[in-house]
């Protein structure tokens, strides 16, 4: 949700990276956690509009969704946590320690080769 605001922050970060290198950005990959999910379509729509007239015009964003992970307190197993049906795949237990949710990252930018 609120992808417009996120798109603006990502745009500013990419513009800065591009300016530092004097290169034209073509594509970028961002990643987000499961507790602050980003909708791929909405973020690209907002980004496309925000990027008009900037060095990022026409760029495409790829979103990688990083699953939430938890560690089982009974058997120590660390696993991908399904927030809609939580259970430890190791022992079936329901006593977990949640790992921190992944932050919003600008993972990679692909620039035009010079």
């Amino acid at each position, binding site marked *: *949700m*609120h992808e417009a*605001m*996120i798109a603006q*922050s*990502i745009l500013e*970060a990419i513009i800065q*990276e591009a300016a530092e*290198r004097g*290169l034209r950005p073509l594509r970028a990959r*961002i990643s987000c956690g*499961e*507790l*602050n*999910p980003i909708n791929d379509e909405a973020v690209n729509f907002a980004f496309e509009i925000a990027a008009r007239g900037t060095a990022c015009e026409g760029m495409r964003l790829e979103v990688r969704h990083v699953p939430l992970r938890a560690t089982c*307190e009974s058997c120590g197993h660390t696993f991908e946590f399904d*927030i*809609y049906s*939580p259970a430890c795949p190791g022992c079936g237990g*329901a*006593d*977990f*320690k*949640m790992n921190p949710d992944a*932050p*919003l*990252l*600008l*993972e*990679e*930018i*692909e*620039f*035009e*080769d010079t």
Partner: protein
Amino acid sequence: MKVSLNKKILSKNEECALQNRALFASHKTLCINVISSPGSGKTTLLSRTIRDLQGQVRIGVIEGDIRTDTDARKIRETGAPAVQIETQGACHLSAEQVTRALGSMATAELDVLFVENVGNLVCPSAFDLGEQARVVVLSLPEGDDKPIKYPGTFAKADVLLINKMDLKEHVDFDLERVIEHVRTLHKDIAIFQVSARTGLGMDAWYAWLKEKRAL
């Protein structure tokens, strides 16, 4: 040419939240972000908390609503200071709005500052306001499936207040199911069953608040 960065994107909101958090720390004020769906009883709970802790804990409230200052006026009736933020359509409070409201609130003279967010179980959870603790209120008439439908909001809360316990006999609400599910989302969450109307169970919540303030 691909360049790997793995750079954390700090939104404007997060930058503002960091500033708010630093201000609360320097004023030794405990800031609590209160989140729930509309009508769960946030304002009623806060009013009762202020009245019951009068003379023990100095409390102020920042109220967030899309329109009207109804809630801030209710809080002022208790004698506590309240500032209303009207979000003009926005479905959540932002850290920047809180920063502006802090200009009209003498936080240094407060032990606890509550920020009552816009009634909404989705969006407020994604916006850090600079608070030190988050309280989610869930009232019985809303139904026991809310933690399953809005896991992000419950997973990030430090306290769950299950409100309107006085209606227990009148609604089908599986308390055990809710508590079990919320604990799988956040193992260490503090859960209190209360009624802001009758005062039932409020003492345990006050004890949590005083202990948290003392830290």
